[in-house]
């Protein structure tokens, strides 16, 4: 028997093709990105340390804040900048609000149409206008909150290496909290919708994950990574554990963690630190039972959406009237720094080597999509094998496989700026 299903996956960020081939008994799957190379790692070489965050935040319009903050962390680590606690807290709030906004957009516009049996947003608009309206509303409310903290909805302006450029007046914070109050109600409705979904059944054959270790509670900024095998190591040592590979059929790289295929993202975060979340009426318990299923990434996202909004609200409410200390003086020196953060789609690593003049000499950026792309292939393989055994039609295989990819929420443009083809000089 021979089956070949090659198709472009829609409703993901960027251009992605999934190829499923059956020859004899063996199914082969390929995660093929056809995005052009973007060379961000090369662009930052030769630039001053303070310009780097501005450059790399342009890697992705959807999660520019994560790229910005990860890069800032890496530079601050390299130059040994000690930050005040409130600066770190505000950074974390900014980051959580971005996760909330990204999650809302992904769940509503990219994931939900599949489960409501419509093809795209415009069909959803005519079938369920209420859902689209509340989606727009939730997106706009979370963006408003991001706007206050970051100065703009993409590519933050309010932060320089060393600290925030200005404080936030109490009245503004109160306004943000009111905005988040409204967002919270919509987020509850969305997560009810997502948590009630009947997900396709699939058992993860490679339940290996990697996630950043939050020093306190959940989604906070730390220096350590933890893996599903129980190991915990400094972000600085990531190269010993994570290997990057180039494939001959795709412009994205692939990663392995200790030689094994792994995944990152909300599911990994919930598997590792789910018990730290407040249990919203037993929600977490139910969701955690399902986490062996790659599709359950959606439910993990729904839980995180609730957490991010309610936690940001609480933290902002606890801010002092005068919540600003001028950016720390940065002493330029030779150094090497790694920033690790949980971007909306999973673990993000930025690594820079800075010389005596404060100029970046070497850089390495690993995005979440690079880390889990091999895992998508493995999961798609398991899924299509099951479906073929059950005699599913080609259309059904295509639909289910696309749903699986969308559950991971890959971001292709982010993932292609890292490749070094033969003949490129790295030094």
């Amino acid at each position, binding site marked *: 028997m021979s089956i070949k299903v090659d198709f472009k996956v829609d409703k993901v960020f960027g251009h992605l093709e999934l190829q499923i081939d059956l020859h004899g008994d063996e199914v082969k799957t390929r995660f093929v990105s056809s995005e052009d190379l973007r060379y961000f790692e090369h662009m930052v070489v030769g630039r001053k340390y303070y310009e780097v965050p501005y450059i790399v935040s342009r890697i992705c319009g959807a999660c520019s804040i994560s790229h910005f903050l990860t890069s800032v962390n890496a530079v601050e680590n390299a130059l040994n900048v000690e930050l005040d606690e409130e600066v770190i807290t505000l950074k974390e709030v900014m980051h959580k609000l971005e996760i909330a906004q990204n999650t809302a957009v992904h769940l509503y516009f990219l994931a939900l149409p599949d489960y409501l049996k419509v093809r795209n947003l415009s069909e959803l608009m005519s079938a369920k206008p209420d859902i689209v309206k509340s989606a727009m509303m939730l997106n706009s409310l979370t963006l408003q909150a991001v706007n206050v903290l970051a100065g703009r909805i993409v590519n933050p302006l309010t932060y*320089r290496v060393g600290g925030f450029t200005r404080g936030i007046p109490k009245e503004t914070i109160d306004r943000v909290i009111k905005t988040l109050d409204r967002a919270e109600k919509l987020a509850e409705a969305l997560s009810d919708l997502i948590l009630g979904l009947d997900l396709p059944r699939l058992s993860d054959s490679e339940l290996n994950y990697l996630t950043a270790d939050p020093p306190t509670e959940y989604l906070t900024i730390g220096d350590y990574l933890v893996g599903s095998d129980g190991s915990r190591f400094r972000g600085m040592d990531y190269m010993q554990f994570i290997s990057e590979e180039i494939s001959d059929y795709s412009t994205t790289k692939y990663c392995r963690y200790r030689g094994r295929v792994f995944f990152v993202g909300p599911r990994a975060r919930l598997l590792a630190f789910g018990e730290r979340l407040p249990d919203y009426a037993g929600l977490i318990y139910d969701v955690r039972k399902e986490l062996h299923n790659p599709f359950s990434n959606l439910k993990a996202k729904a839980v995180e959406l609730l957490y991010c909004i309610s936690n940001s609200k609480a933290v902002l409410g606890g801010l002092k009237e005068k919540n600003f200390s001028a950016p720390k003086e940065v002493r330029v020196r030779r150094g090497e720094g790694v920033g690790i953060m949980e971007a909306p789609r999973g673990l993000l690593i930025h690594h820079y080597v800075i010389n005596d003049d404060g100029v970046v000499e070497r850089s390495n950026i690993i995005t979440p999509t690079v880390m889990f792309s091999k895992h998508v292939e493995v999961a798609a393989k398991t899924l299509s094998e099951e479906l073929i055994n059950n005699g599913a039609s080609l259309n059904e295989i295509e639909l289910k496989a696309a749903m699986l990819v969308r559950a991971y929420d890959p971001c292709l443009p982010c993932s292609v700026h890292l490749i070094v083809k033969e003949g490129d000089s790295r030094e």
Partner: protein
Amino acid sequence: MVKLYINNKEVQVEAASTLLDAIVRAGFKVPTLCYLKDMFNEATCRVCIVELSGGRLVPSCSYPASEGLRVLTDSERVLKYRRAIVEMILASHKIKCQSCSMKGGYCQLLKLSKEFGVEGIPVCAECPLYGSECLLNLGIACLGPVTIAGCDAICTKERSPCIGCRGPASPDDVLEEGIKTFIKYKINIDEVVGISELFWGSNPLTQTIRKLFTNLHEGGRV
């Protein structure tokens, strides 16, 4: 009283009124620069031009309102010529926004240049930080003095330096004034050129900046 038509809307004004009075009475707007009500209406700037039926362009601030006149305030022709007028005013206006007291969004010329897309005014003109708050004053390399305005200075509003994303302010005298500002605040020109390369990349102006700086610095004209 005389009756006339502004953009096809009927309006009545007293016999000694100007077209501008009639336009305001009818609820429309034309930009003005030199006009000061009851004090100065010599029509020197001409940005208030409007089109009469028949195609004549006249300055509304000094043209008398007369019976049955039909006036268009924003026809295609009016806008085209008004843009040209703004362009000419800007060309002869000595742009020194970096040290002008009207900066911070009070400048009418800036408003007009934004409205008509005439470029040449630097970000400093609309920067909300001035005096002791200026980032240059804190020793931070901010590209405001040499970058085209029009962004509402959102970066400096958040006390973050301008990184030149809108491109260089093109006339050489504006750049020169900007570089004098950098020299005044003792900003390292290498830093400025470095940041300008972020968005201006291969634009030869990045080199012009360096050249101007060397000239100004070594020529001792500062």
